[in-house]
């Protein structure tokens, strides 16, 4: 039983890792960023590339991936999302286009493959990341054997969630973000630089995706398509948890991860995932605003 709960916890932490960034971009900014999965993918490729070219291990890749994906996110906000605030479905569509562009950039090695040049670590193929010795194998927590890397992921997720909570609820930047979330015009009238704060918030959410990507690369194969299922999962977690509620996202990731783990233990992984989708549909039909929604104006 403890083992199943740990597996559920591990699945929850992965869901939360991806959903955390979306909770900020979708929840706080009202932008459905379908390129989020591609930012996760970009984070995973940063790990691959930094391993090949800079001989950095996976832990050292975390800050690097954060910076790279935050920069990509910043550019997406400046070039595309900025023009679409208030048009929720259009942000979904436009960022899907951006997602295709990022995927193709990796596949085509930024266009270099046209000229017969290749960059090791990019391209259409599969990539792998080796995890350092200390994070492989199993460790024993409270009498239960757990996979060390999975435990590491849970730890990273807790730290990131805490950092996000601090940023959003205990810093002046967070106050500005939440003010914009409630009423952008009023916030602007109070002297908040709405454009700058929005761009930085989007960059932070994207950076979280990059860190999620580093974690994913440790136990999954890295390839250009890897992000699509992740963005769907993350998006559903945020929608089920309630838009604009960090707590809702955390709880909904916990709930869906446990459901996934428990159903998988009695049937199989495919049906477990199907069950997660069914629960999300049920939640949205019964409570369209999600389990814990912020009541905005």
């Amino acid at each position, binding site marked *: 039983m403890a083992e199943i709960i740990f597996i559920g916890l591990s699945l929850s932490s992965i869901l939360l890792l991806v959903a955390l960034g979306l909770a900020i971009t979708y929840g706080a900014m009202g932008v459905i960023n379908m390129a989020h999965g591609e930012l996760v993918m970009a984070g995973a490729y940063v790990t691959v590339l930094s391993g090949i070219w800079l001989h950095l291990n996976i832990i050292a890749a975390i800050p690097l991936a954060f910076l790279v994906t935050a920069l990509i996110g910043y550019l997406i906000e400046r070039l595309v999302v900025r023009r679409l605030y208030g*048009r929720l479905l259009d942000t979904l*569509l436009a960022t899907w*286009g951006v997602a295709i*562009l990022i995927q193709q950039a990796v596949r*085509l090695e930024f*266009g270099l493959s046209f000229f017969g040049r290749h960059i090791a670590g990019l391209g259409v193929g599969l990539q792998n990341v080796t995890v350092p010795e200390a994070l492989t194998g199993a460790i024993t927590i409270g009498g239960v054997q757990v996979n060390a890397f999975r435990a590491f992921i849970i730890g990273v997720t807790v730290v990131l969630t805490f950092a996000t909570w601090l940023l959003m609820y205990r810093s002046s930047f967070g106050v500005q973000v939440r003010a914009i979330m409630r009423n952008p015009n009023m916030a602007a009238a109070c002297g908040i630089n709405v454009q700058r704060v929005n761009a930085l918030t989007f960059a932070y959410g994207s950076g979280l995706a990059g860190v999620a990507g580093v974690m994913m690369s440790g136990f999954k194969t890295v390839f250009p398509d890897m992000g699509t299922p992740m963005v769907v999962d993350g998006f559903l977690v945020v929608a089920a948890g309630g838009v604009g509620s960090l707590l809702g996202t955390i709880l909904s990731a916990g709930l869906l991860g446990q459901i996934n783990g428990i159903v998988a233990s009695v049937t199989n992984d495919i049906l477990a*995932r*199907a069950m997660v*989708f069914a629960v999300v549909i049920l939640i949205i*039909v019964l409570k369209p605003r999600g389990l814990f929604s912020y009541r905005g104006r």
Partner: protein
Amino acid sequence: MDAKRRLDYATYAVFIALIMCAPLVLEEFWLNRIAKFLVYGMLGVAASLCWGYAGILNLGQGLFFGLGAYMMAMSLKLASPTSLQQGSDKPVPDFMLWNAEPGAPTDLCCINRGSFLWLPFQHQWFGVMMGLLVPVVVAAGLGWVMFRKRIAGVFVSIITLALVLLVRLVLIDAQPLTNGFNGLTDLGYLTIGGFEFDPYSAATYYLVASALSLSLILARMLVETRAGLILQAIRDDQNRVRYLGFDVPVYQIFFFAVSAAIGGIAGILYVVVADFASPTFLDLTFSITMVIWAAVGGRGSLLGACIGAILINTIEARVSETEGFLQAWRAIIGLIFVLVVLFLPRGLAGLANDAGEWLTGRLGGGRRRATAPRVASSE
């Protein structure tokens, strides 16, 4: 009838004439390919009806397409020579035999636990009927739940998206019945009155082309009825229509189901043309790709969305001979899509519309145009 509308109808007529004449110049291989793209054109029509006219962004149109396709493929699978030659007097799909438990009877009724569901599909028309009925019933049921509860905007998109992925997983998991990831391949021909529709024949092309023309004409007639006008009013301001005393969900459910029916028929025809059905029809990517076709062609125009689908796929097929070009083309599509959403929400049809307006303004002495579909503002 004013000049603008006359021009509109003329465009429809020209388009239909063009696709009907295409077999005169196309060789067999391209005929089959274009027939596939005409099926995609039907999906464009369905997307435009749902999104452009009803304001419902369905991110799970692949569900209706996939259901239609699987229903048809089940019937055609039983009609294939391999299914008929499995040592039983009744047809049995080959994959069921490969996976059968030792000693299981070689009969469709009980070769595995769910195989009896296949029994009625021995009649081809049952498959065709189900291919139409199942999507419509699912859409009506789903619409009933969603629109009665006044779920709108992005939440409809989330639900449809989750549902298509859910059904896809169930389909894959029901491996003994559906052949899982591999889908249904090696199918027989659709036979009507003793005539076999070979996927590479001109007859099959004409079947698809007439279905596309019919659905275009019917959809166009439908949106010009009173109900169609009310639907567009709902898209623009749901509450106002509700206050006027109309039963809003009824209109939404009806048009959602019509769009699903077109999707289902497209699925049926795709199986006839492409000779397989697979879970990839229910991939998220495919459903969003349909939205891209409609957006680029013009979501507010049935014909525009249809042409968008055909155009994008034809270009993709042209460049796909070289792997590098194909990947680059996909990147270009991504870029075009971003630009269309940002700067050209009415798509190519919007451009054509402006050009047509300018033209009729010149010729017709500047008469005002009647109700042309306006692009729905999202959310």
